[in-house]
């Protein structure tokens, strides 16, 4: 049994929150550089130039990449041989979010209750999903998730007879109808299988995969390529100003499902594609 102090978790979460808010991951920055080279629409190219300039300015001046510093999403993989001591794991995570929000001058965007809507003034609580895994490590993946792209994400349980053509149609409809609102170029996270909430979680997990890394199953890799091509043929472009690059990547994650079900979730990530992962 390995012991990890709750205070360490707080410190690590605060660090992830700070870095994710100020600095785009290198793979994301590089993907925007490639998009800038490839885009043929002048109006979209101008957007991509601003995204690249912003990435540099935010990192250098330690300023938030986007004014929407998001709802903090935390995915935990907790090794079953880990014991968190000195406090609750969830409280430790929320304290890290609270500390970073204060220290980094993040916007306070979280309301306590979806109906009553009073601001909690410290960006807590984070949305936390915890999975128990083998081993003695604690893996923390954190994403400041913008409302713009979350607000147009979709979940639907299709008919198994709809198959891949039905899934493809659903994804294209989602991106098409979303238009400018999720702040394209986006990353498309697609979760297929499981149950309704499992598909949604798979879609979210897919967003954390670095751009350029494909799904290891070859048949799925082909579907990712096919879907990226189809999404980019929509012509939406950056900020829906018209262009050939609407998505930087399509990432698909799949899971076993019921013989009578075909759950599908599409989670879009805006051009302020912020996330950070580490292991304790």
């Amino acid at each position, binding site marked *: 049994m390995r012991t990890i102090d709750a205070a360490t978790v707080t410190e690590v979460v605060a660090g992830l929150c700070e870095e994710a808010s100020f600095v785009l991951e290198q793979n994301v920055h590089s993907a925007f550089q490639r998009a800038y080279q490839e885009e043929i629409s002048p109006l979209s190219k101008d957007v991509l130039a601003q995204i690249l300039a912003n990435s540099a*300015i935010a990192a250098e001046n330690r300023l938030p990449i986007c004014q929407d510093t998001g709802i903090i999403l935390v995915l935990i993989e907790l090794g079953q041989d880990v014991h968190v001591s000195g406090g609750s794991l969830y409280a430790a995570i929320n304290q890290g979010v609270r500390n970073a929000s204060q220290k980094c001058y993040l916007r306070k965007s979280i309301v306590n209750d979806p109906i009553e809507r009073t601001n909690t003034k410290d960006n807590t609580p984070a949305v936390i999903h915890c999975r128990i895994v083998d081993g003695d490590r604690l893996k923390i993946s954190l994403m400041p998730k913008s409302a713009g792209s979350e607000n147009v994400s979709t979940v639907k349980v299709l008919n198994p007879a709809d198959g891949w053509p039905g899934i493809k149609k659903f994804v294209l409809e989602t991106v098409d109808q979303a238009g400018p609102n999720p702040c394209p170029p986006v990353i498309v996270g697609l979760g297929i299988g499981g149950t309704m909430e499992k598909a949604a979680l798979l879609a979210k997990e897919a967003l954390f995969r670095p751009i350029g890394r494909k799904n290891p199953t070859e048949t799925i890799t082909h579907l990712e390529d096919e879907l990226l091509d189809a999404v980019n043929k929509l012509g939406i472009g950056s900020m*829906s100003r018209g262009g050939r690059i609407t998505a930087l990547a399509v990432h698909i994650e799949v899971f076993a499902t019921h013989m009578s079900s075909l759950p599908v979730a599409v989670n879009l990530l805006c051009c302020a594609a912020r996330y950070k992962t580490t292991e304790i």
Partner: protein
Amino acid sequence: MHVKEVHIPLTDEVVADLHTGDHVSLSGKLYTVGDRAHKRLVQYIGQGKQLPFSLANQVVYYVVATPAPPGRIVGSSGPTTATRMDCYTPALLAQGLKGVVGKGYRSAEVAQAMREHRAVYFGAVCGVAAFLSQYIKNLRLAAFPGLGAEAVYEYTVVDFPVVVINDIHGGDLHLEGRKAYAVTQDD
């Protein structure tokens, strides 16, 4: 890239000369108005109360910025989704509002109301808030201090970069841009 320099307050002549897809650099005052400030303004209008600042010929910016760190005028300040403001916009247009800066769709009703009131929808890039903050040179609290970060601030901007999304001639960049670059799908 040709950029039209536009000074606020806007005039009907300037508005008439703006077309969908134009690059524009805005200089003058921008009023930051988010969801809650919109609600408050529309309540004032409904009750016939005098507004804390005049909307006549002005431009509002849909934003709730991050707090300013020490030594900076503003934090990161980029546009939020205009779609959420659709229910409030016609009431503000009736007060003489001539332009809005935001991102995302507008409803057909709002697009039409903007044409009728000869007002322009400018799109700023979302997700580049640190970059956009460079163009904000001064800030003054203009209304509703009780709303905190969501209060109305008067920004003084110089060469703030935007693109015309909806002009008064019926143009809509979100529709036209897509048409120009869409490729027929295989199946």
